[in-house]
């Protein structure tokens, strides 16, 4: 309750750091899609929700071992990403951004409604208990530590892929000059599909990590979606490094605000900071486009 520099405060900061890993992973997927395809998947957090239900259903109902379940869920959401691109994004690629936003917004509510019909409104929990890890007087939840570690490894792996492979380099090049890609022998449509699969796969991975910490319910996307979108905009939409840094800033606002006042206040302060930054730097902290 108090805002003193004591062990609880330090614990809050470190928890914020761990939380930031998950937020950074979520932001990375959205930023990748926007940077390459120039479309915002407003329904990104709903893909995560679908992934969480996939984990729950496959593991709990079908009894598939957890690790295999995770692999299946990641593949499933990657396929959902490809499907989303193929069915929804492709037809509106050349239309004004507002149309693209509305269409993916439609998908958001469609997925929520479909999940409510299919799985009901009850909160579900995977029931995995990983315990906590004591450091002196502080305790850190193991699931948060695992989440942070896996998210970090995934982000490094993606960066290496984008840096070293031909298709990865092409994916980074597309956002800089779409028109000349055929001259390089790159089929942009194929690169978009690969990107959508990776974006979906990242949402699937985030889902696997989130079921370790959070209850599953159809509206969980509303808890994370705006936050992730705000982080991306704050870091400069499409700027993957910017999104990474912004995730750490926002997570600290939330956890320190939460430690000083109450969790809700943490979110309020974070969004207030976001609004102020938008006045001063509309392109985001690290963005170069307006």
């Amino acid at each position, binding site marked *: 309750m108090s805002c003193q520099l004591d062990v609880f405060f330090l614990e809050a900061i470190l928890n914020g750091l761990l939380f930031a890993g998950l937020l950074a992973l979520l932001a990375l997927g959205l930023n990748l899609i926007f940077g390459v395809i120039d479309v915002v998947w407003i329904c990104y957090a709903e893909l995560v929700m679908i992934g969480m239900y996939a984990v729950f259903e496959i593991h709990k109902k079908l009894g598939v071992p957890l690790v295999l379940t995770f692999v299946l869920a990641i593949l499933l959401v990657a396929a959902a990403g490809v499907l989303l691109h193929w069915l929804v994004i492709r037809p509106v690629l050349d239309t004004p951004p507002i149309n693209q936003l509305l269409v993916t917004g439609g998908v958001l509510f469609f997925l929520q409604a479909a999940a409510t019909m299919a799985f009901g409104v009850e909160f579900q929990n995977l029931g995995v208990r990983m315990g906590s890890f004591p450091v002196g007087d502080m305790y850190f939840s193991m699931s948060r530590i695992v989440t942070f570690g896996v998210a970090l490894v995934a982000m490094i792996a993606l960066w290496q892929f984008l840096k070293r492979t*031909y298709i990865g*380099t*092409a994916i*980074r*090049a597309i956002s*800089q*000059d779409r*028109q*000349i*890609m*055929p*001259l*390089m*022998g*790159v*089929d*942009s449509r194929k690169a978009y599909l690969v990107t959508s699969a990776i974006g979906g796969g990242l949402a699937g991975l985030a889902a696997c990590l989130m079921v370790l910490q959070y209850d599953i319910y159809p509206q969980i996307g509303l808890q994370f979606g705006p936050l992730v979108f705000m982080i991306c905009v704050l870091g400069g939409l499409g700027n993957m490094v910017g999104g990474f840094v912004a995730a750490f800033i926002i997570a600290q606002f939330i956890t320190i605000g939460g430690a000083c006042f109450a969790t809700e206040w943490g979110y309020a302060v974070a969004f207030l900071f976001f609004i102020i930054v938008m006045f001063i730097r509309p392109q985001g902290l690290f963005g170069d486009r307006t």
Partner: protein
Amino acid sequence: MLELTNVSAGYGQFQALFDISMRVESGETVAVIGANGAGKTTLLRVISGLLPASHGRMTMEGTDLAAIAPHRIVETGIAHVPESRRLFPSLSVEENLKMGAFMKAARPHFHERLDHVYELFPRLKERRDQRAGTLSGGEQQMCAIGRALMSGPRLILLDEPSMGLAPVIVQQVFALVRRIRAEGYTVLIVEQNVSQVLRIADRAYLLEVGRIETSGTAAELLGSDEIQKAYMGL
């Protein structure tokens, strides 16, 4: 090598090229000259598939270019260095060159071609890790030409390589083109800088409002009174 027969093309209702017939033989350097807006850039865009031809036939060593997808035209041995270079500004110089070797057939040759490009343009090797957007105009042109060479082309399309460069750099760029030519590449070059380009070309076509007005050896066109009056300000 490259043959165009009665090719027409345009943007929507606007027709930019009318019945273009031309050919480029292996080993030649051919120039297309003409005023701003004559359709020179459009002509190269049609050949490399960035803009579909509305009419006519184009073949590269017998392959019908209209029958293959735009991103596969580079596989026929055509590399296009576009107008204003169009490098990927936040990729490094070497990553830009890597993009030139994107197609499957080029990847196994990446290292040998990279060495070749660095040998031709040592400046690029010095700046290999630098962002392409930070290069000077002349260096960017080197990088754009190098990127085209990475695909292992037989025919290089050069669109206004001297555009937007300082006069001293323009001289360097034409020296670059001479070197490319000396390497044995076939070159189709589009230029507004008529007097310069006719000195490095074997043959030339004069394009006026989308039509080929005249063609001949570079020496013939260089000696023509009309061309001297209209394009060289003599």
